[in-house]
């Protein structure tokens, strides 16, 4: 039952954190920190292969199946780590309703952990919803000036795609029932479902759209810029660092394995969307003048590589996509932390009002430079391994689309360096006399993320060998 305990710990911890505000305004963040620390320590004791399988609603074939394989472990570990980063990054940013804030944060994390481990489609859907609602509150209550609009947009996109997911799940279960006479939501059973090709195609499309809205891929990406920009720093960290990965995870875990033939039939359009996302996302990133919005759009570009890699569906590309998911989690979380720190100090995100900040805050400048360099795909850091493997794998499948996506390598440099130039380099803005540099609290998580990215870049085998059995088990072409 260890996986269930992990999720319950986060849910229960969230409630404790919420109530603890009655004792002291600072109590919730300490409680949340403690809960994450305990959850992290507990995760370390859970071996790969752990599974929980219990009856839940037997009448409808719904069970409580939670399972931890290598891919889930990598994603859950990333989730808890970025949860920690989120709490640290919002340490001084949140000014009111501390309890409710930490409650929402921990409940989102609980939902995400559930999404990454549930192997019953109904349960999966429940967790899918659990992670969204608290995230809506995080944006709507503690967001910036346009938070109501952004939160509503986020909610509508995810709810409509969630509805599509629910329909697709129910239809899949129904068609499987029609074929076998058994109602089951169990992933393992549905994997072998015998469904007609055209039906399978439409079901695949339902899952696909639901997940690429989350990813997000062009043309469903427009919620992202508003949501990421308006969310408080912790919200952006979790959104970009983890929530986007649930879409990618869904593609790897569900879309292709459940409908292998249909997915391969849809390979070219899917890879095309990936390549378009890489280039168009990067181009939109360059167009922005808002620091945070630029970082937000860069996620569209980076997750485009994941889409491209998943549908190339060979070991190189899918493993590359996994590395990209983790590496992007770190690099983008760090950049959102920088964005949040700047907003807190300057009360603006407009790069036109920044400039030359390196002189005022050299540590912050060096940190920003490091993560920009990482996100443009510099070899030696994790993102490069992800992008290179994806492109190398995709090249075996479709040359023109790979060439198109490779243009993203250039675009990334264009927007990444322009971000640095407009904010940290250039003539110091005379309007800004001094800003506080990163302190020990921020630097400690930044250094951890730097080490993680260097490790991923120099010895990615640590992650690759964890995810290898999963990837080959899902039927990825060698």
């Amino acid at each position, binding site marked *: 039952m260890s996986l269930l305990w992990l999720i319950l710990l986060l849910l229960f911890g969230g409630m404790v954190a919420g109530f603890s505000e009655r004792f002291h305004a600072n109590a919730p963040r300490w409680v949340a920190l403690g809960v994450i620390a305990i959850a992290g320590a507990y995760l370390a004791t859970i071996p790969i292969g752990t599974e929980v399988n219990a009856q839940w609603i037997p009448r409808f074939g719904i069970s409580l199946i939670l399972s931890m394989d290598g891919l889930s472990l990598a994603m859950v570990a990333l989730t808890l780590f970025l949860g920690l980063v989120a709490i640290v990054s919002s340490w001084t940013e949140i000014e009111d309703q501390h309890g409710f804030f930490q409650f929402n944060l921990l409940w989102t994390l609980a939902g995400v952990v559930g999404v990454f481990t549930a192997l019953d489609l109904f349960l999966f859907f429940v967790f899918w919803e659990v992670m969204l609602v608290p995230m809506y509150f995080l944006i709507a209550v503690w967001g910036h000036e346009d938070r109501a609009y952004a939160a509503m947009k986020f909610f509508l996109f995810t709810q409509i795609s969630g509805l599509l997911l629910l329909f697709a799940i129910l239809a899949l279960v129904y068609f499987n029932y029609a074929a076998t006479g058994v109602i089951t939501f169990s992933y393992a059973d549905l994997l072998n479902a015998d469904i007609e090709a055209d039906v399978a195609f439409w079901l695949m499309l339902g899952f696909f759209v639901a997940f690429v809205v989350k990813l997000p891929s062009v*043309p469903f990406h427009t919620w992202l810029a508003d949501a990421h920009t308006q969310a408080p720093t912790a919200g952006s960290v979790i959104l970009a660092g983890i929530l986007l990965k649930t879409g990618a995870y869904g593609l790897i875990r569900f879309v292709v394995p459940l409908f292998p033939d249909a997915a391969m039939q849809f390979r070219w359009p899917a890879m095309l969307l990936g390549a378009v996302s890489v280039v168009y996302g990067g181009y939109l990133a360059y167009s922005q003048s808002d620091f945070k919005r630029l970082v937000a759009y860069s996620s569209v570009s980076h997750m485009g590589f994941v889409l491209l890699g998943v549908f190339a569906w060979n*070991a190189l590309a899918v493993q590359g996509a996994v590395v990209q998911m983790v590496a992007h989690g770190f690099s983008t979380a760090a950049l959102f932390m920088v964005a949040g720190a700047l907003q807190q100090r300057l009360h603006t995100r407009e790069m036109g009002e920044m400039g030359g900040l390196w002189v005022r805050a050299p540590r912050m400048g060096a940190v920003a430079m490091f993560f920009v360099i990482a996100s443009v795909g510099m070899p030696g850091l994790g993102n490069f391994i992800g992008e290179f493997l994806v492109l190398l794998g995709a090249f075996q499948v479709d040359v023109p689309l790979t060439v198109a996506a490779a243009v993203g390598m*250039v675009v990334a440099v264009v927007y990444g360096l322009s971000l640095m130039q407009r904010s940290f380099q250039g003539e110091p803005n005379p309007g800004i006399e001094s800003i506080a540099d990163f302190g020990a609290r921020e630097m400690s998580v930044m250094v951890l993320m730097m080490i993680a990215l260097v490790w991923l870049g120099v010895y990615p085998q640590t992650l*690759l060998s964890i995810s290898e059995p999963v990837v080959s088990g899902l039927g990825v072409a*060698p």
Partner: protein
Amino acid sequence: MEWLWLVPTMPLVGFLVLFTTQGRLPNNLVAMIGAGSVGFSALVALAATFEFVQGGGKPFEQTLWTWIDVGGFTPSVRLYLDGLSLVMVGVITGVGFLIHLYATGYMAEEQGYSRFFAYMNLFVFAMLMLVLGDNLLVLFLGWEGVGLCSYLLIGFFHTDSTNGYAARKAFVVTRVGDTFMALGLFLLYRELGTLEIQASLAGAQEAWPEGSTVCTVIALLLLGGAVGKSAQVPLQTWLPDAMAGPTPVSALIHAATMVTAGVYLIARMHDLYLLSPEAQLAVAVVGLLTLFIASFAALTQTDIKRILAYSTMSQIGFMFMALGVGAWSAAIFHLMTHAFFKALLFLSAGSVILALNHEQDIFKMGGLWRRLPIPFWSMVIGSAALAALPLTSGFYSKDIILLTSFDYGTGGAWFWGLAVVAAFLTSLYSARMIFVTFFGEMQTEPHDNSGPSMWLPLVLLAILALGGGWFGLAPLVDVMPDGGLEGDTHTGALVWLTALIPIFGLVVGYLIYGSKQISVDALIDSKPGEGLRRFWASGWGFDWIYDRVIVKPFMTLARINKSDVVDRIYVVTAALARGAHHVAVLTQTGRLRWYAANMALGIVLVLLVVLEVL
């Protein structure tokens, strides 16, 4: 040899120490770490050289760890030392150390001393990985790493946004080349199933016949990477702007080492080019074009560093041409001698610039030769070698290239002829630079307070620039397809003409800029002359074209589409929904009569439909 891994590791450690201490160390300690780490590498490399020679020139491999292991793709981080990488390592650590030593003095007054040496050490590490890696992925790590350091160092004085612009331009333009190169790697892997350099070269010879299309495509894609990094046509435009970086950076990165990485790449992958005569011809043509374009551009620059930048471009053009016409060893030989004399030229220019309080315009210098003797003589020696005057190092390397190009198929005479014109221009602009800078009337009072850390590297490099060509390049014999530098077999007028052209250029240069017996003023002041001067000075208008064809449209589109046209779909959908809502609201009046009338109307309509009247 077992210590080979220390060669790249020392500068990496230097970088890590300087990076993590974030400028908290005192300057002299920073200098010791920064220059010392590279010096230590140079010593280890020297020891490796002795062992290499004693071992009869057998290649040495050292596998450090398996970098990635996915689906049969298993690149290792493996170092490979053969004659070619030995020469490169020698140049990088040797010349690199002298430049670091010089920089300890040159940068003494500047802010960010520690940051500077951190970047420099990182650069040396990346450059060493580039030449030592036995896998194209490791090479690519170095390749991108040097590009990053180049960016960081060009924009080192980051509070001036023109430096930032130059730095970004360098990174973006070279990244275009890098993308071609990455595609070349993907294709190579798809065809041969490996990125190991030795294995893929052997595999290529087995798998492909001469003239194979796929081999040509790979070779051309790699050439795309090479032209970006080595500032060759059409990706050469970043190099002149890169002079915004501190002068030691220009000497190390933009003269001696990084910009020659493309030459190294092609020499390293020479089997692919031997299999594809078309691709090899493309290398030669790129080299010749660049050589020609850059020589004219150098003639019209007024900024001493930009003269040297265009000169570097043209000398690398010589190397590319050499590779293309099959003078493989001569290309690497010229790479080495060029590293000596061009580093010397940049560093002596740096000393002049520093003494004149950062004045870089040669027409605001003049008459400095008595006041700055060491930079003066250094520059004379460097220029002599650049112009390939007999007995200097540059003569030995350039002479072979010119003579070999003459033998190249039917077009040989063309290659030779155009390259000789460029050689003439080289000595002409060298003479111009020397005479205008050091003779004539003094325009600015110099203040030379450089210490031994600055003049010692100049003296040592001057010795190398003079004598560095006498030894030839024995280690290349086993590596390059032409079997190393052979004794030349040409005779007669061709040899004399090739050797005397530079002297002729020098004489003309003296007559124009030294004794001023020939006046070119009338030529320059004439309308076509002025137009041509401006055209050459702008680097043949490449920037102008790229700006209009690529940069401007991209930026305009970015400005127009800032709010993302795709979002319009959703905005319109939302607006329609809201509109429908307003229409629906209109029906909700709260008046009973209105509701009753509507209900009645509805019933009638339904009845009519049911009774099939409608």
